[in-house]
């Protein structure tokens, strides 16, 4: 017997072909949990393709195969599908897709849900619309060229007849799928949903407490697990006394989990799990554990001294990663400007810590996970349980924030391993302390920048170096240099029109799990270059936006050919998503103008500026601060302009950009994870603070109107924020902050 509550054969080989995936065509129906709509298990619905079903009740069931973590994708993907489908928004029901390779990648990171799926979703909508039109033509026995779908009906104008989608649903679902290349897509001017600000589909549930996140999953017979993980990566339990823990009321069991061998990757971290009938008992049980840990090679890690080491290494010649024009050897001191910048380790700290619930039986595993990567979850759980991927069913809940943390399925592996041992549904919920102390950290980093300026103090040549432990070190042992992909994130891809531009990377070994955090290496690199250009601007007595435009040169497309590296461009063809200096200029101009219109500065106030291209979008940010005599910093205003190409849900682009400003301010003002003797020093929001409402500035966001292919939105707002802030502080006070976070020198 299957553990799955509703299984339905939903084999559509044509759809499989459409997505380039063959094999079993089984789509599983909805489970008993209330937030997963029953659409695909619904009897009176016609399935038109993998993403779209139409009910006889006229409802259209649109699948969102991406994870919702606040970016609004459960609204955005359906907007695209509904538009080409000519569906009316009030009839739309959103279905959350399970882990399923036929959808293509479901990895909800890299700011790519709309960027990668915009055209495919339009095709899916158009295919379904074409089938409904064909079904109507068949019913009326007229040529299909005489009928037209519009606003949830198919019309035959000649005879003034119309049929609703509900009336056509079952007939349409029996038709052969049209070829995706043959279906006609709408003109942009015909869009009804794309480009419209739509209220997020989960709004009412979120405001009534009904929205279900990973933390909210409750199953019959479920037990709660809380895990004490090794305090240092590489250490293991040498002695465990769980006698007191077992006496805590509600504690059911104490289980040791093995620590990972080799590179940590997505393995469970191991440690000691306390299993209880409720969360509180599990947490209390953990407090009563007595554990001695073995020594680890990472015990010596001290982030302060490591940053000093990196700061020394970046002063020496290192590995060449980009050379534009001839190398400069003549760095005479009177024309040379140098600076170094550092950032500490950072962590994600989503409001909902990592959490997953697993139910393992002899037939397989069913998971409910707050995950950005359902397929990776499926693969890693299957591997760890020693079962087939098809035996692992992954339900994606709403995510209480992700920011990259929930793209690592280690917590789902923990839940699955424990459920397998206990033969019960197990929920593993991380505490805030677990989240802060056992994360996949954004890398500690030091950067060196040097420019040679001409008689007008304008830079003609630049040299820059960066050193940070690589994300690759999480997946392979002995990685000691940043990867090419990481250097593509805001380090080697600055399209300055310099005569000579040399970029080098520096050795940086890893001592902890390094991971990707919202905008990844763009965080440190935008801080480095954004600060340095401001320093150059100050040296040349020129406003920062002007210096940017001059260094970028005239509007043109840049491909970095023959510069010693192949630019990965966020996985996009440069032909579709070029590095376009003109688009830099546009966002710079918008923000520069907005700054100029707000000129009346008070004493102690100053504006700062920065611009950055990432995830193929362009974002300029200006920040106004005030610093008083007691060194109290107040961030007053932030202006941002984003060119993300064509946008689907403008209000969510604005909200993501507002959120990116807040995220960027949090990390720049207060973000720091530090290590002493291998252990993370921070534990909760008192010592890993996040921006609060009283610290939050007014935020103005302008979206550049564009028909360019949709670009990333979730991340690109973050990188320019930190340098805009520190540049503003410089402008207000003359104090140049080159080492984040700001709260080491100012009260925030």
């Amino acid at each position, binding site marked *: 017997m299957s553990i799955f509550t509703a299984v339905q054969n939903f084999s559509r080989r044509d759809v499989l072909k459409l997505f380039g995936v063959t094999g079993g065509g089984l789509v599983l129906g909805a489970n008993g949990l209330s937030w997963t709509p029953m659409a695909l298990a619904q009897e009176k619905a016609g399935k038109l393709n993998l993403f779209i079903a139409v009910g006889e009740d006229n409802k259209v069931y649109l699948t969102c195969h991406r994870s919702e973590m606040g970016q609004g994708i459960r609204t955005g993907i359906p907007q695209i599908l509904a538009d080409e489908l000519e569906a009316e928004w009030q009839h739309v029901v959103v279905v959350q897709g399970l882990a399923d390779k036929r959808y293509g990648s479901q990895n909800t990171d890299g700011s790519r849900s709309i960027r990668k799926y915009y055209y495919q979703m339009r095709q899916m909508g158009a295919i379904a619309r074409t089938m409904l039109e064909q079904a109507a033509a068949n019913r009326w026995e007229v040529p299909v060229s005489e009928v037209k779908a519009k606003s949830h009906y198919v019309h035959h104008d000649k005879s003034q007849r119309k049929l609703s989608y509900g009336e056509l649903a079952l007939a349409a679902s029996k038709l052969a799928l049209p070829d995706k290349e043959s279906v006609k897509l709408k003109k942009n001017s015909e869009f009804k949903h794309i480009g419209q600000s739509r209220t997020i589909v989960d709004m009412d549930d979120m*405001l009534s407490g*009904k929205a279900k996140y990973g933390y909210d999953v*409750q199953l019959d017979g479920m037990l709660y697990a809380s895990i004490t993980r090794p305090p240092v990566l590489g250490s293991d339990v040498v002695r465990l006394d769980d006698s007191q823990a077992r006496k805590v*009321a509600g504690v059911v069991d104490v289980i040791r989990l093995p620590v990972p061998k080799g590179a940590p990757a997505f393995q469970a971290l191991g440690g000691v799990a306390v299993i209880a009938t409720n969360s509180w008992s599990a947490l209390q049980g953990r407090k009563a554990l007595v554990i001695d840990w073995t020594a680890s090679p990472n015990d010596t890690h001290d982030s302060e001294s490591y940053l000093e080491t990196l700061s020394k290494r970046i002063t020496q010649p290192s590995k060449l990663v980009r050379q534009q024009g001839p190398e400069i050897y003549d760095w005479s001191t009177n024309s040379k400007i140098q600076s170094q910048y550092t950032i500490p380790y950072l962590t994600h700290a989503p409001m*909902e810590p990592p959490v997953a619930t697993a139910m393992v039986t002899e037939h397989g595993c069913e998971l409910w996970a707050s995950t950005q990567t359902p397929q990776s979850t499926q693969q890693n759980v299957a591997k760890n349980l020693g079962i087939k991927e098809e035996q692992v069913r992954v339900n994606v809940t709403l995510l209480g924030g992700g920011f990259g943390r929930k793209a690592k399925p280690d917590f789902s592996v923990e839940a699955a391993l424990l459920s397998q041992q206990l033969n019960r549904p197990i929920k593993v919920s991380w505490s805030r302390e677990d989240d802060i102390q056992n994360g996949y950290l954004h890398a500690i980093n030091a950067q060196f920048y040097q420019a040679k300026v001409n008689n007008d103090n304008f830079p003609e040549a630049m040299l820059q170096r960066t050193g940070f432990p690589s994300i690759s070190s999480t997946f392979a042992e002995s990685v000691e240099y940043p990867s090419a992909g990481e250097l593509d994130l805001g380090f080697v891809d600055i399209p300055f029109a310099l005569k000579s531009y040399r970029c080098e990377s520096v050795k940086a070994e890893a001592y902890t799990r390094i991971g990707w955090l919202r905008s990844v290496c763009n965080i440190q690199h935008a801080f480095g270059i954004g600060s340095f250009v401001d320093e150059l601007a100050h040296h040349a007595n020129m406003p920062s936006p002007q210096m940017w435009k001059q260094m970028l040169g005239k509007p043109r497309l840049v491909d970095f050919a023959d510069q010693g590296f192949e630019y990965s461009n966020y996985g996009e063809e440069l032909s579709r998503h070029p590095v376009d200096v003109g688009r830099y200029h546009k966002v710079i101009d918008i923000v520069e103008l907005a700054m100029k219109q707000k000129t009346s500065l008070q004493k102690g106030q100053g504006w700062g500026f920065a611009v950055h291209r990432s995830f193929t979008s362009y974002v300029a940010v200006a920040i106004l601060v005030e610093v008083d005599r007691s060194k109290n910093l107040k961030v007053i205003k932030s202006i941002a302009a984003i060119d993300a190409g064509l946008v689907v849900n403008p209000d969510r682009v604005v909200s993501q950009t507002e*959120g990116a400003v807040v995220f960027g301010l949090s990390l720049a003002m207060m973000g720091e994870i530090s290590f002493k003797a291998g252990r993370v020093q921070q534990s909760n929001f008192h010592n890993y603070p996040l921006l609060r*409402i009283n610290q939050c500035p007014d935020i103005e966001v302008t979206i550049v109107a564009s028909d360019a292919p949709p670009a990333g939105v979730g991340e690109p707002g973050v990188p320019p924020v930190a340098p805009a802030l520190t540049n503003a502080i410089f402008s207000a006070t003359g104090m140049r902050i080159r080492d984040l976070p700001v709260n080491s020198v100012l009260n925030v």
Partner: protein
Amino acid sequence: MSSKKITLMLNGKIFTLDTDPNIPILWVIRDMLGMTGTKYGCGAGLCGACTVHIEGKPARACLTSVAQAQGKHVTTIEALEFEGLKEAWNTHNVPQCGYCQSGQLMSAAALLASNATPTDADIDTAMSGNICRCGTYTRIKAAIQSVAKKRAEK
């Protein structure tokens, strides 16, 4: 930690629980009574995600033991009624991930109940205990102001 019979008045209903009196009501409400609108965020009173009302005043459910709440009226997001508040949240499209919004709404309702016309500074003070990692603060502020304005116009 012996268990004890405790009476909890939650959202107008009376529950008799046989439980450790020290357990925070957050876990009673969520794990035992199955009402999951009240969220865990830090377990230390630092983030406000678990904010409920006790006798109409905002309280952190993660730090309030069931013994402390005994005999008092506890209200959670599921039973929150405050004229115009959720509508304002909707109009301003406040939530992103939504996880902290139960706590934000509970704090905002408590503020508006005690102060019909809060200034920006009042809002900062009352709401500064509620962290939103997504960064919805500007919209939270605008939503609260719009409720206050509408009430003043009546």
